[in-house]
């Protein structure tokens, strides 16, 4: 498994092209939002990153289920890869969200349902890594990772609902406006197209990075096995 598969190279090219187009659309195709100005353009990739974060989480949970059922080690590699990528994009999501919030809502942070859920998700991801780090036996590590990925994945929607109910009963007015009502702007068709295209682009980015990370995982396993053999 040393040479890079041709399909991956093709995927790389396609992904880069899509990203270039998406970036063009974000800066030139989509109009400037009337009230918020330039910072609104961040929204397209901010949501796309959030989408990738959630997708990664789903992949990790499903990989967990497959690992527990099939006991095939490759699912463990997929799970870890998905979590790592999820951390990257959840981080991007949260930080860009904060950057957007500052000029619009006059605050760096707000405990609205989406940000709350996003940060909880990131914390669960990090906890997953810490769990794995504390376990030496590879089989147990994989099993526990799988279990936690499943449990974590199930708890996140519940966090979201809790935070939603929290907000409808106690609407919060922060700074210059109510964040619940705000942050929603009407998307013109051009904006909508840019938005959907960004989602598509980031999905490709996800698949590309996931594939790369899985290959990395397989190589790491190879090295580890060879290392053990050499030490015999």
């Amino acid at each position, binding site marked *: 498994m040393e040479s890079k598969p041709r399909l991956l190279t093709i995927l790389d090219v396609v992904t880069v092209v899509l990203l270039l187009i998406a970036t063009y659309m974000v800066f030139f195709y989509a109009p400037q939002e009337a009230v918020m100005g330039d910072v609104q353009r961040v929204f397209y990739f901010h949501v796309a990153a959030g989408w990738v974060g959630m997708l990664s989480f789903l992949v990790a949970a499903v990989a967990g289920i497959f690992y527990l059922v099939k006991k095939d080690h490759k699912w463990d590699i997929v799970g870890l890869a998905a979590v790592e990528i999820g951390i990257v994009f959840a981080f991007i999501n949260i930080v860009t969200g904060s950057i957007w919030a500052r000029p619009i809502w006059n605050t760096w942070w707000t405990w609205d349902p989406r940000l709350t859920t996003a940060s909880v998700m990131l914390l669960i991801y990090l906890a997953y890594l810490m*769990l794995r780090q504390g376990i030496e036996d590879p089989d147990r590590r994989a099993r*526990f990772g799988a*279990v936690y990925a499943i*449990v974590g994945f*199930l*708890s996140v929607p519940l*966090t979201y609902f809790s935070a939603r109910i*929290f907000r409808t009963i106690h609407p919060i007015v922060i700074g210059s406006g109510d964040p619940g009502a705000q942050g929603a702007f009407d998307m013109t068709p051009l904006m909508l197209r840019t938005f959907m295209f960004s989602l598509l682009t980031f999905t490709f980015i996800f698949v590309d990075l996931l594939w790369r990370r899985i290959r990395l995982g397989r190589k790491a396993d190879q090295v580890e096995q060879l290392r053990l053999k050499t030490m015999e």
Partner: protein
Amino acid sequence: MTVERQSSYVPGKGETTASSKAVGFFRAMGAVVWKDLSAELRSRELLSAMLVFALLVILIFNFALDLDPATRRQSTITAGILWVIFVFAGTLGLNRSMAIEKDRGCMDGLLLAPVDRSAIYFGKALGNLVFMLMVEIIVLPIYSLLYNVNLFNPGLLLVILLGSIGYVAVGTLLAAMAVQARTRDILLPILLFPVVLPVILAAVKASTGFLDGLDMIEIRPWLNLLIAYDIIFSAVAFMVFDYVVEE
């Protein structure tokens, strides 16, 4: 501690194997609970640790949040502080309960018994729940006295029960994993808190609601969330516990 051996249990006339399996399950579960409770009754080390810890947390909050009596008696403050106490004391209980199993090798003994692994899970979880409830029952009157708040509110007690169930359902599972890791003690809170957040959120809101004497209509969504959480996580933990304790 005796565990009924399923292989030696011969179904009598009219009994199906399904019902005898159920009997075996509950017997095993009961055995686990009884083992934990009777051990604790003798040594009382778990309960005293949790209790002293809870009282210390009350003390710390007293000075950390130096509030005037009127503010302090607000339902939001009371509910918040109570649940922080329960969450942290609960972590202590979960950790110790599982560590005792591992350190004394009880877990291996339990696993050798021919019973459904999930019976062990429910037994442990029930034991943990009992300990948590005992601590809560003691903390409530003490807090009432110290801060002049009436906490003998049936709604509040219901919320505490439901919240504790959810906490213990997922906590027992995660503690079983954490105790097998190198970073055992610090790992449980890291694993548990993000996942148990919906329970805490709902429990605090519902507690506040009951303390304020709000209409059931306002409190109902939180109770529903708690019940949903309890069911979902008990079910998931039950299904997955096997993988966590297998050798």
